[in-house]
């Protein structure tokens, strides 16, 4: 019966109710988008970092992976040392550099990565095969942007050089390579031509600049049945061990990398927070306005309800139900609206230069979204509570008298 009354009260002024629902829907949509933005970057970045099972990244002191051209020497000793640690079960070393490639009269510069195919966590093979293990640069795998830029196909032979010169041929090192596979690089922006070759082959190709050097080593820490907290502690212990054992490098765990990225993108999170908070406030404001309006108009009716024996809690409940119903309708509508706008905003931000293909800014994480919407629902119900409380406390005899006068 209370539900019937609440429902009837909303239906009494359909225009008004629709307007409030629409306003709430927009608040909900904004809130969802902002929650998706605030939690999405972190979630997406984490899943990207951990997608291949490596939790630690070892880089030249003070740098981020492939952020600069820095590399570390004595790589084999470093990698061997890492492999001795009992908690480390895999190490994937890699060397990155920029090379010039040409086929016929087409030429481009490309990002070249030396890796070990068996353990690498840098790319996924999509066609063809891996380059054969070799100490001389003979076979490479490349990404789609590479093929597109050069108009090349699998099986083609390319010219690779460290310098862009046709005229100054002798100045740089050069090699003829066969394109044997197509891959998708996880951390390379999709538009950038990139290739991968066996690490020793690339090192040899670069001569003195590449001898026994790597830009990055990824390490995977053994995972066992322990709880997440213990696992994190173990990774942190390994990380500290690496840094004390090898002062020339920095070891970055997934957690610290996320913190660093979050620092860089703090702006978006804060924007998200402010807009999200604002939409919550506005949602509350809308519901309060609508419900107080409806309560003020019905004060007499509510007094009659009290007079014929409806307890205070009953009146309170009936009016809060109105807020709840408005909230539910608005949120349902807002959910769809929010998902559509999130998709649109995501395509805008995905244009950021230098972003890996798999990084998203707006990620639907059910838990975060339901929490936010739950908050809005509670907020809109509580917003109805203020006028509801006023209505429930109405002095019955007095209100009846006023109703008779009105």
């Amino acid at each position, binding site marked *: 019966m209370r539900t019937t009354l609440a429902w009837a009260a909303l239906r009494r002024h359909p225009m*008004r109710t629709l307007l409030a629902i629409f306003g709430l829907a927009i608040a909900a949509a904004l809130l969802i988008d902002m929650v998706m933005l605030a939690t999405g970057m972190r979630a997406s970045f984490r899943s990207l970092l951990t997608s291949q099972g490596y939790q630690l990244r070892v880089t030249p002191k003070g740098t981020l992976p492939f952020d600069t051209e820095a590399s570390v020497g004595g790589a084999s000793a470093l990698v061997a040392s890492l492999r001795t640690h009992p908690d480390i079960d895999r190490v994937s070393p890699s060397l990155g550099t920029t090379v010039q490639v040409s086929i016929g009269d087409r030429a481009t510069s490309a990002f070249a990565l030396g890796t070990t195919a068996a353990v690498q966590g840098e790319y996924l093979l999509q066609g063809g095969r891996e380059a054969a293990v070799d100490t001389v640069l003979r076979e490479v795998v490349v990404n789609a942007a590479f093929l597109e830029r050069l108009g090349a196909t699998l099986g083609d032979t390319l010219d690779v050089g460290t310098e862009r010169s046709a005229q*100054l041929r002798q100045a740089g090192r050069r090699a003829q390579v066969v394109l044997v596979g197509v891959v998708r690089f996880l951390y390379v922006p999709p538009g950038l031509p990139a290739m991968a070759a066996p690490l020793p082959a690339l090192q040899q190709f670069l001569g003195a600049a590449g001898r026994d050097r790597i830009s990055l080593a990824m390490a995977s820490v053994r995972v066992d049945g322990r709880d997440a907290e213990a696992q994190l502690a173990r990774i942190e212990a390994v990380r500290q061990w690496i840094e004390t054992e090898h*002062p020339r490098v920095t070891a970055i765990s997934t957690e610290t990398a996320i913190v660093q990225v979050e620092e860089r993108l703090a702006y978006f999170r804060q924007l998200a927070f402010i807009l999200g908070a604002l939409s919550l406030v506005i949602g509350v*404001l*809308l519901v309060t*306005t609508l419900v107080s309006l409806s309560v*003020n108009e019905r004060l007499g009716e509510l007094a009659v309800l009290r007079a014929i024996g409806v307890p205070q809690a009953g009146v309170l409940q009936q009016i809060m139900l109105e807020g709840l119903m408005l909230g539910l309708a608005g949120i349902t509508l807002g959910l769809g609206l929010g998902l559509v706008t999130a998709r649109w905003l995501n395509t805008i931000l995905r244009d950021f*230069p230098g972003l890996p293909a798999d990084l998203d800014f707006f990620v639907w994480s059910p838990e975060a979204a339901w929490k936010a919407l739950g908050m809005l629902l509670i907020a809109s119900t509580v917003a109805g509570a203020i006028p509801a409380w006023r209505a429930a406390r109405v002095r019955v005899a007095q209100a009846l008298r006023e109703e008779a006068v009105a």
Partner: protein
Amino acid sequence: MRLRFLRAPHVALLCCSLLAGPSLLGAQTPRDTVIGTPTVPLAPGRVAPSVRGIAIDERIAQDAGVRVGDTLRIAAEAGTTGEPVVVDALVRRSADPSEVARSEYRVRLHLDHLQRLTNAIDRVDRFAVAVRPEAGPSAVDSLLAGVNHVAFGFRAHASRDVAVESSRTFQVVDRFHRAIGGITIVASAVFLLCILLLKVEERRRAVAALRLAGLSRRTVALSVIAEAAVVAVLGSGVGAAIGWVATLAVNAHYQRVFRTPLTFALLTPRIALFAVSLSLVLGIVAGALAAWRLVRTPPLTLLGR
């Protein structure tokens, strides 16, 4: 007779959110400034007999407590001894939007010094070439074409193209801001309309009383509309003031976080005017909509009897 149907803070809050959207990143010409007092002038090609001079980021100076004249060691690779250098100058970062999120330190060395230190003898990453001012822009184009055609192992770019490319990050942020701004404006408009309409509805009894007292529909409608418009304008004025205070806070905060003199939020008169006129239009629309509904309904129905 005055109809008081709106409480200004509601509208102020909305206008605040309205302004949060289209705030702009101020575009400024990037140029690092030397702020330390060099004890030894930084002159290209000047070769000190033993210890070379370098310029360091103001950030390193702040974070590591280094001052002009201090001696540091510099090495191409961590873990190696490197060589001693003396800090000749401090450099302050330019207000370059594309650099905002980069937090690493920077040092500046004389070219020959860096070449020797990194074992990159006689190598450079790029040249900057200035064309004689009398040559004009067409000369730049033909020069570019010439260099790129001969391709001595280089690729030439006009500065403006480089600027366009390097500002892509900024453009994306800008587009995102525009999108968010648009959404915020639409959302605020809907909120404003909702609240104004609801608030006018709250006055239905007063309107009924006026109509019963014999005032014409026109008079009643006009008074409702005028009231809504005045309140919307007042509210957006308050909102603009709050927005202005917010820009101060936003700038202070992000300039500290990102250590840059860049302006993050800017409330221009145009934006303020836009906010106020948008609220005015919304106020009139909401007032008109509500008034139309109210004056059409017979007064007795309005009283709910």
